[in-house]
């Protein structure tokens, strides 16, 4: 099943969740999302989501020098970001609950 369209709809919540664990930079975020099972998401989608959330005030950012590599731009959640995450998680839980009911109704008899 192609999950890419579903993932796009919940990518904000996924990104906010990961960043709420600890501050991350873009490359790290992409890897973390994939480690958690969101393997089909494109890098551009993740970076675009970060930019949008940053511009919306959901995140703040700061640069950190890296040995042997380029500076890394770390993102952290703002208080507004934490509020959005809370709302997003609540919405997601409601959606999953509703889908569970729909799926239960549509189960073929004998399955």
């Amino acid at each position: 099943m192609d999950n890419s369209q579903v993932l796009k709809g919940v990518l904000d919540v996924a990104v906010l969740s990961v960043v709420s664990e600890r501050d991350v930079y873009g490359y790290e975020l992409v890897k973390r999302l994939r480690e958690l099972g969101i393997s089909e998401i494109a890098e551009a989608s993740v970076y675009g989501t970060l930019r949008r959330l940053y511009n919306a005030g959901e995140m703040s950012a700061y640069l950190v020098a890296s040995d042997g590599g380029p500076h890394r731009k770390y993102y952290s959640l703002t208080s507004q970001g934490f509020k959005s995450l809370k709302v997003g998680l609540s919405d997601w839980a409601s959606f999953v609950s509703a889908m569970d009911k729909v799926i239960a109704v549509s189960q073929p008899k004998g399955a």
Partner: protein
Amino acid sequence: MRIQEHLTSESESFIAEVEAGLGSINSADRDEMLDELRSHISQLLIEGEYETIREVLGEPKLYAIELIKASGFDVPAQQSRFQRLVKLQAGSKVLIGSISVVLVAALGIIAHDYQLRSFRQYEVSQSVAIDEYLVENFLNMPVTDVVEILTHEAIPLCSPTNLREGSLENLKVVNQSPLPGNVLTRGGQCMWLFVAPNKSAVESNKFPAPNNS
């Protein structure tokens, strides 16, 4: 710059093409997007578990479009149409052999005589990207009127005597990425650009003859 030291020529080219694709974005956001892209590519290069940047990040023009969309900016209409053109063109990657063979392969079930008769071949004497710029300005054709745009392998030498329909001497070059699977000119070589219109374009005489002026 430290970041630049990590970049290969391929990644520089990739970044340049993404930058071109981000032309509609304000400079502050664009610069930060590109800085992050450089940083990301540097990490990829350090890990080195791939052959090319495109293998990981895809086509730079599509990367730019997705980045713009995900960032919440409006994708310029021209780029949106480019995406349709990519889909339009997705089935034809290689042009081999005669024009009729190519047309049959590329046009599939709709390879009728009217398309064969209307087929045009153009010489492109500079490195170009096959995109809607060419379709709308070079060929003076709306994207929606095109069935396929096919390209031939670059050949070492082109001369007017090679032309079947005429050449366009004042072709403007756009610095944008090629469509996946196309072979474009390299190092001043020439290429052939093959274009086939759809039926309605043919019937309404929208398919222009090459400009010989």
